[in-house]
C-alpha cells in the first residue's frame, strides 16, 4: 500500500513538473502586438465564466476559458511598453453594482484580441471564440480596454488578463458590459466549442493596441 502511495505521489510530481515550463510574451513594438502563450480549458466550453484568459498560477487561473502561461504582470508591462494608457477607473466598490445601469464601463486604450493554434484557419477573433448569452437584447461585440488594475494584480494575484465584463481585477476588460451586468444575470459567457480547439490545446493569444 505504501509503495502504491509513493508511486502515486511520484506520478503527480512528474505531471506537475511538466507544468513548470515558463514561457515568455513576444512583444512586437512595430506591429503594436503582444503574443501570449496559453492553453484551452475545456471546462468553460460547456459552463459559464467571466474570464477569457488568466495566468494559470493566479487565483482565477483555472476559472478561465484559456490559461495564460506567463504572468499577468508581464502582460501589463508589455502593454505599457507599447504605449497603451491604463483606464484605472474601476474599483472593487464598482463591482458591487446591482445591474449594468448602476455599473461603470472600463476606460483605457482600446485593444483587439485574436487566437491562433496549430491548424487554425489564420487568426480567429476572440469575439468568435466567445458565446455571449444575453437575457434581453443582442450580443455586444467585445470592446477590450487596457483597464490597468496593476496594484490589485500585484496585491491579490488573480491572474486576470482578459475579463469579459468591466472589471476591477483584469489587466484588459470589456467596456461593452459595465460592472453589475453579471450580478444581474444580464449576460453570461462561455467558450465557443465550435470555434475553439479541444481542452489542453496550446494556443497563442494575440493582443493588438488600436492606434
Amino acid at each position, binding site marked *: 500500500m505504501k509503495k502504491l502511495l509513493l508511486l502515486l505521489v511520484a506520478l*503527480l510530481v512528474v*505531471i*506537475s513538473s*511538466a*507544468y513548470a515550463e515558463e514561457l515568455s510574451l513576444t512583444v512586437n513594438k512595430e506591429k503594436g502586438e503582444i503574443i501570449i502563450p496559453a*492553453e484551452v*480549458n*475545456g*471546462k468553460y*466550453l*460547456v*459552463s*459559464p*465564466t*467571466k474570464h477569457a484568459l488568466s495566468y*494559470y498560477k493566479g487565483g*482565477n487561473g*483555472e*476559472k478561465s476559458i484559456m*490559461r495564460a502561461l506567463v504572468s499577468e504582470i508581464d502582460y501589463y508591462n508589455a502593454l505599457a511598453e507599447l504605449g497603451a494608457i491604463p483606464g484605472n477607473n474601476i474599483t472593487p466598490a464598482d463591482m458591487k453594482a446591482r445591474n449594468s445601469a448602476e455599473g461603470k464601463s472600463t476606460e483605457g486604450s482600446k485593444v483587439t484580441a485574436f487566437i491562433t493554434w496549430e491548424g487554425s484557419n489564420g487568426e480567429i477573433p476572440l469575439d468568435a471564440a466567445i458565446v455571449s448569452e444575453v437575457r434581453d437584447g443582442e450580443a455586444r461585440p467585445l470592446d477590450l480596454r487596457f483597464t490597468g488594475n496593476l496594484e490589485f494584480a500585484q496585491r491579490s494575484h488573480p491572474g486576470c488578463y482578459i475579463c469579459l465584463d468591466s472589471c476591477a481585477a483584469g489587466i484588459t476588460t470589456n467596456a461593452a458590459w459595465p460592472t453589475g451586468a453579471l450580478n444581474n444575470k444580464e449576460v*453570461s459567457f462561455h467558450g465557443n466549442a465550435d470555434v475553439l480547439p479541444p*481542452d*489542453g490545446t496550446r494556443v497563442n493569444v494575440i493582443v493588438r493596441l488600436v492606434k
Partner: protein
Amino acid sequence: MIARLYNSITLGMLASVLMFQVTWLEMRVNIGWLFFGTVAVLFTLQTAIKPLRKICSTFTASALSLVVSCAGVYSVLGFGSMKIIPASIIREGIMQTRVPFSTINTAIIITAVVGLAVVFFSRKNEH
C-alpha cells in the same frame, strides 16, 4: 468500511456537480476541494450515526448510491457535459489541470466498477 467510502465518493460527486451549478460558488472556490471535503463529511456521518452505518454498509446501498449519482449527474449536466464537468472537478481537486478529461474519466469508470465489485465481494467481511 469500503461500502461507506464508495457511497461517499459517488454521492460526493453528485453533491459537487450540484455545487458546480452555483456560478457564484464555482467562480470563487475550488469545487474539487469541496468534493473531497464532502466525501469526508459523508463518510464520517455514515460511520458515526449507528443506524445509518448499518444501512450504508450494504451492497444494495452502494449500488443504489451509484445509480442515484449517475442519474442525478446526467439529469443536471446531460451527456455532453457529463464527460467534462466531473473530470474537471477531480483534476482541479488534485491540482493536475493538464491531465486530459479522458484519463480522468477512465479512472472514474474504473473506480465505479471495480469499487462496486470490491463492495460485493467484501460484504461478508463487513458483518
